[in-house]
């Protein structure tokens, strides 16, 4: 608890610096990543983040120490090389894109690990901590490094904001962009540069292995909550910043604990919550709306049953008979009866159930839709009368009043359905 208060009150200015840095880089990479997620190029980000490792090592060898400038430039160059190679191979060979990306990722990363091992064997005392580039350690970032990483993050955010319309065009409809004369090739290159930069700024804090998660997961999680690009980007940035700060906190409390994996853990929790609980697109919400729908169909079927009773000169049906009509659905049937009497669609007299006047016109409506649809299938689509019942059974719950009107006028207000049953109207 003490740690918690100490960390989040920012008494230590170096912590405040690190937190600001991680928020900036989180927002920046989530911003770029959201576009590449929408562009269905999520794997490219993963390839780039693995591909920067050899560049980091070469930068280190050339500088002889952990000089951020050398390391950032090295990482950028090898990331750019990987990006260029993958798009060149895509254009000039018949290899599929996933094969190209998988090979580039493993070749560059493998080469990077070889270099890293060589450096570690060299006995250079400066090499301690180079391992941190694999999984990241936000707490170990020096104040001077924060300026570089944070500055680059601000640059990325500004670029994306200025070029918002160009990048949206790039993702949504690049052919149209070319048709109106925009230099789509240059815009693609600019975007790739920003993508590489966003990987580069994350290597120290998050590490090369998991940087892709910080690019893609925030956008993917945010997509569950909104359909608006502006909101999407802001949500993704927020998710990423929250996970970044929490991951840094863990690294602070437990020394030697890498930041990257913890950031990914928090991001995954956010993604999981979005996947389960987001309104409309979440699993729970979809499950609930299906249940509500199924309940309504059951209710409709019960009303229909009662109406058919009236047609057969039985104004009321005993409860036992209703239960018999819906075998294995006892609880549902009870629920429907409860709901319908609450809505005053039915009245219960001892053990006999009768339709009220409102219930009767609602039941008529459902039967009418069912029979209208049967007639439509039979007359307009030449489907035999004994084949029309099943789809009508499903569509009677879906057809809107406008569709009903259309059916009535198309079929010229018919009296009988294909089974010679009366089409009831009020």
């Amino acid at each position, binding site marked *: 608890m003490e740690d918690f208060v100490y960390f989040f009150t920012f008494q230590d200015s170096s912590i405040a610096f690190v937190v600001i840095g991680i928020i900036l880089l989180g927002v920046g990479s989530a911003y770029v990543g959201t576009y590449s997620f929408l562009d269905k190029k999520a794997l490219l980000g993963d390839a780039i983040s693995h591909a920067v490792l050899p560049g980091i090592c070469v930068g280190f060898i050339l500088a002889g120490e952990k000089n951020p400038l050398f390391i950032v430039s090295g990482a950028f160059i090898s990331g750019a090389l990987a990006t260029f190679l993958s798009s060149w191979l895509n254009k000039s060979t018949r290899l599929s894109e996933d094969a190209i990306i998988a090979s580039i990722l493993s070749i560059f990363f493998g080469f990077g690990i070889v270099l890293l091992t060589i450096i570690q064997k060299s006995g250079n005392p400066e090499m301690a901590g180079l391992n941190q580039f694999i999984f990241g350690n936000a707490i170990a970032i020096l104040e001077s490094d924060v300026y570089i990483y944070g500055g680059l993050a601000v640059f990325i955010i500004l670029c994306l904001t200025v070029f918002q319309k160009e990048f949206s*065009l790039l993702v949504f*409809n690049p052919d149209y962009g070319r048709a109106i*004369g925009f230099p789509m090739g240059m815009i693609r290159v600019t975007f790739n540069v920003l993508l590489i930069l966003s990987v580069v700024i994350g290597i120290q804090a998050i590490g090369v292995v998991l940087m892709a998660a910080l690019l893609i997961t925030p956008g993917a999680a945010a997509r569950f909550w909104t359909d*608006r*690009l502006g909101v999407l980007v802001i949500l993704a940035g927020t998710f990423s910043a929250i996970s970044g700060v929490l991951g840094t906190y863990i690294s602070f409390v437990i020394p030697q604990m890498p930041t990257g994996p913890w950031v990914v853990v928090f991001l995954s929790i956010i993604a999981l919550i979005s996947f389960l609980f987001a309104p409309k697109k979440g699993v729970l919400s979809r499950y609930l709306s299906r249940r509500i729908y199924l309940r309504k169909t059951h209710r409709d079927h019960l009303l229909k049953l009662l109406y058919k009773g009236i047609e057969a000169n039985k104004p009321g049906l005993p409860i036992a008979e209703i239960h018999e009509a819906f075998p294995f659905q006892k609880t549902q049937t009870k629920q429907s009866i409860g709901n319908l009497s609450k809505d005053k669609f039915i009245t219960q007299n001892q053990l006999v159930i009768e339709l009220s006047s409102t219930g009767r016109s609602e039941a008529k409506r459902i039967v009418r839709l069912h029979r209208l649809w049967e007639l439509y299938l039979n007359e307009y689509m030449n489907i035999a009368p004994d084949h029309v019942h099943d789809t009508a059974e499903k569509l009677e719950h879906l057809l809107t009043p406008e569709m009903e009107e259309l059916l009535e006028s198309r079929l010229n207000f018919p009296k009988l359905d294909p089974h010679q049953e009366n089409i009831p109207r009020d």
Partner: protein
Amino acid sequence: MITQVKNPILEIHDLTVSYDQSPVLWNVDLSLPSGKLIGILGPNGAGKSTLIKAIMGLVDPSGGYVKLFDKTLAEVRSRISYVPQRESVDWNFPASVLDVVMMGTYGKLGLFKRPGKKEKELSMESLEKVGMHGFANRQISELSGGQQQRVFIARSLAQNADLYLMDEPFAGVDMATETAIFELLKEMTAAGKTVIVVHHDIYSAVNYFDWFIMLNLHLVASGPKETAMTEELLSKTYGGKLNLLTKVSDLIRQKDFNPLKN
């Protein structure tokens, strides 16, 4: 039957286009008058979309050239508007109808600048012309096929061009929308614009267009309705692929390089 015109709005000279080095268009050579509603007809895989893309510079020809208003494409780009196929984009992209239509104003706006009030008004006017102004703030993922098509047409109207190239604007559109779009295109040509439309339905095409381009890997006909829309030319266009052309295409594909490339 190829009718050439004087002072053409569009001139295509010996255009050959290949994909993966196998040619999909052979030596197309035609010229088109302005102010007409022009239909491009042909069977599946005849190269109709490719012809439009080649005119817009979206695919590189392996031979020949295109001239618009007697100039190159780059010189007159702002006078030309392109409507891509509806299926060519992902409609799940998070954008509103108005966002998409405003893309039509980007060409004149140029890079960096953001669309402002003027662009918004122009886009709303274009939406009104296709009867979609009530949908301006709707997400594009919620639109039906016909509505998506109308959004694309509104976007191209917002460009305020003189020549319109539309790739299958009637695909996946219900009858009422098709008639409405067609009326709009007729109004546009009456106002002096030229509209070139890739179309798949011969029966409705007869009533719609005043000039026809018939394609089947090569140009079968280009001319006014009376001369180009004949039974003989139709059967030539739709009567199966030309055997020899297809065989040559296969032969070229098997080469390790593109022998047609300049």
